């Protein structure tokens, strides 16, 4: 009770304590915002891989046929929600007068269901096509339009006008020799297709470079001599809550059975098939990003040590000016531990209040970061976040409470450390020296 009374008294009488609270709050808020933005960026980066490739990717060292059977078997696995085959190649896209760009052609077996309604500019309506025989394809929004230089937003009305337009793709095809040698040569091939829809995933590299076509069409053009289709990769979506390791093990078993029975592959070739999660495929980059984040937090952490010094200064000042209080308390029989706990406890309070305010501030800034960025653009004309630079259309604004709590806890410990030496000085106060009448 006495401690609480003294803490409240110091807070009321020593307004300067609010400075230490402000410093702790400022440092904690900054670290929370940096950790959340960077961490959010990494999460979205990982999620973008899932968006592009599904949860699990199965990729053998060579293209393989009979993929429909593999998909059928995979979809029977309890933990698998769906599977689709893909066949990819690089190509050039001619969109119109003088408009040519390099793209990645992705032949998919689930073109119409691959993207959600929100991701499709047409709103999932099947676009009018005069010629149903015409090949239909989807293109990323960045392939057909550039975001506004100032706002980084696309002109959706202009983009909608592209739907239904005819385009030409060129790519290389593998042609098998008719002779016994079985040698292959690569020839250029062109694909005419109608842009059936434009997709906007919000992931810049997907939107900027991908053209999606039915896998059958890509097979026909790339491997014209083959009977039946081939696929380069199978992308698998797992059911919600599926345990990844168990799912991977089951998928491996399915693949081994399929490759041995249907393809007649040797165990060596089967074992060289990569069956990994999309997140594992990105792990090298994610590890590098996490390292960068830690370095940044470390630098800001060191600078934030100033807050410890500040608390030390303020508490030192309080101890010096409150010598009489301390002496009276000690003369009433308070132990050294009790006296120390008054100041250490007060330090903890400053840490708790400061980090609490910092967490609230960090939360507000993080959640409204896109609005703040928009206002900076409007007021200063400075566009800080561009999808072409940072990959995503929006700044990730999710709060990671684990890292926020860790930072808050560190702030409390730092505040306590700052109060420690002044507490020791307080303990050393000798009532006889302070209270003698001279």
């Amino acid at each position, binding site marked *: 009770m006495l401690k609480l009374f003294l803490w409240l008294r110091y807070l009321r009488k020593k307004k300067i304590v609010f400075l*230490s609270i402000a410093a702790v709050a400022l440092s904690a808020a900054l670290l929370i915002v940096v950790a959340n933005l960077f961490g959010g960026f990494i999460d979205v980066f990982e999620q973008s891989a899932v968006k592009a490739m599904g949860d699990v990717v199965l990729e053998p060292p060579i293209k393989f046929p009979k993929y429909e059977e593999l998909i059928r078997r995979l979809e029977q696995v309890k933990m698998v929600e769906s599977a689709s085959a893909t066949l990819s190649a690089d190509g050039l896209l001619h969109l119109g007068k003088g408009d040519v760009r390099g793209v990645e052609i992705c032949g998919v077996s689930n073109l119409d269901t691959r993207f959600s309604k929100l991701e499709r500019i047409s709103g999932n309506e099947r676009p009018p096509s005069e010629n149903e025989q015409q090949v239909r394809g989807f293109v990323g929004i960045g392939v057909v339009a550039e975001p506004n230089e100032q706002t980084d937003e696309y002109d959706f009305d202009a983009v909608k006008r592209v739907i239904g337009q005819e385009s030409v793709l060129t790519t290389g095809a593998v042609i098998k020799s008719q002779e016994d040698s079985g040698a292959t040569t690569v020839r250029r091939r062109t694909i005419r297709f109608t842009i059936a829809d434009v997709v906007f995933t919000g992931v810049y590299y997907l939107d900027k470079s991908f053209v999606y076509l039915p896998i059958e069409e890509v097979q026909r053009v790339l491997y014209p001599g083959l009977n039946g289709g081939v696929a380069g990769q199978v992308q698998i979506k797992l059911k919600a809550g599926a345990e990844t390791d168990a799912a991977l093990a089951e998928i491996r078993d399915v693949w081994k059975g399929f490759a041995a029975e249907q393809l007649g592959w040797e165990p060596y070739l089967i074992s060289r098939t990569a069956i990994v999660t999309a997140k594992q495929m990105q792990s090298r980059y994610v590890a590098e990003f996490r390292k960068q984040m830690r370095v940044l937090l470390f630098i800001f952490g*060191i600078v934030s040590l100033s807050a410890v010094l500040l608390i030390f200064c303020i508490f030192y000042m309080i101890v010096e000016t409150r010598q009489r209080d301390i002496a009276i308390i000690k003369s009433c029989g308070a132990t050294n531990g009790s006296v120390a706990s008054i100041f250490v406890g007060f330090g903890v309070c400053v840490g708790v209040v400061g980090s609490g305010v910092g967490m609230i501030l960090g939360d507000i800034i993080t959640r409204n970061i896109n609005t703040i960025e928009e206002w900076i653009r409007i007021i200063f004309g400075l566009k*800080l976040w561009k999808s072409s630079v940072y990959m995503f259309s929006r700044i990730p604004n999710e709060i990671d409470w684990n890292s926020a709590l860790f930072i808050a806890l560190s702030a409390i410990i730092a505040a306590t450390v700052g109060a420690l030496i002044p507490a020791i000085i307080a303990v050393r106060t000798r009532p006889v020296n302070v209270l003698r009448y001279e």
Partner: protein
Amino acid sequence: MYKIILSFRYLFKRRVSYLALLAVALCVFIVVVVMTVMTGLVRNFKDNNHKWAGDCVVGTESLVGFPYYEDFIKRIDGTDFVEGVSALVKSYALVKNRNLDWSSSAEIMGIDPVKHSKVTDFDETLHYRKNDAAKAFEPAYAPNLTGCVVGVDKWLMRDEDGKYSYEDSPYEVALLVSCFPLTSKGALAKAGTDLVNTKTFYYSDTSRSGLAGVDSSFIYLPLEDAQLLCGMAGPVKRISAIHIKFKPNVKLADGCEKVAALWKKFVEEKKGAEQAGLLDTVKVQSWKDYRREFIAAMEKEQTMLMIMFALVGVTTVFIIFVVFYMIVSHKSKDVGILKSIGVSKADVIELFLCFAFLMGLLGSAAGVFGGWLFLLKINRIEGFLFEHFGFQLWDRTMYAIGDIPNAIDLKVLAVIIASAIGACLAGAFLPSRRAAKLEVVETLQVSQL
């Protein structure tokens, strides 16, 4: 004089002053290190862009290009402010290894290597034909074949030290380069039975400009071949851009202004010509504007980092404030004595601000010295950490960064020191004013002594 003596006395006699010094030194140290590295990265990036683009670019973003460039080149080549001019073609292509099932999209740049090296540092970016631009497109294994120079990141992998695994000489690789040829109206030009033009080039060298985006996407071809591939080699030849280098004494803005004026006049004169409409899409830009999209991103990151440091630096202002508040409280007798012998309020404020200045100066000096020492050894420290703990600041296999930049920029340093001193003065101002307001009669009364 007494202000200086008292400032030193307060600084060395009051142990709490050391804390303020430590806080200032810590902040200055971190800011010097981080800003030096960041500024170095931005400066390198800008330099590499400048070296890659030359001083001024007269060009169009349209893949159709623009005609009559030879007339304009003749006109500016003879002027007293231009040192070199290089015409180039830029387009997209599909590149395939003739012997492998491998293809990739790329950006192609058709250049005359000798002329281009007079404008840019192209010859210095080569590996096998370094400083021998005339032979850039001559493969060492077959000089009669048409060669191509490939961006180094498109061709080779970097090891963990950021070094490329070059062979002793280039090995024979035939690359099929396919482009959509476009007519002057932008439509697809039919090339035989196909819609694309294809030509085989032989790998002759790699180019390392130090720009990750460029080195991972560009393939350099002879200008005439690129014009043929892109359909720009008709009776009226077309190109995508003219890159210009100014003479050393010409200021960038002045040079660009002169080129813009000449270009405007040229367009006027060509009005009515068959393909004159294509000239309207051409812009005259300095290299900074030409590469603005890329440079601005890095500059913004630097700005954001500075803002964040400024926010954290506020804590230092708080520390100075508290320390001065304490010193003023303890030295009220000094202030009383000074005022009693006629020192004015302004002089008292000046005394404490002088002390704050000294604190800022010494704290900055300590921080700068520590930062300088750390930067001096930063690459060795990173090497040690990598060797013993596998830690690298940047994974060199992923980032096109060599050594960590550690050359301190004096301008940046001056700004940091000035900011630190400014922060000290700001933090000390309120306590100084409080000191100045102290009444002699109160501070020197017997009960206070």
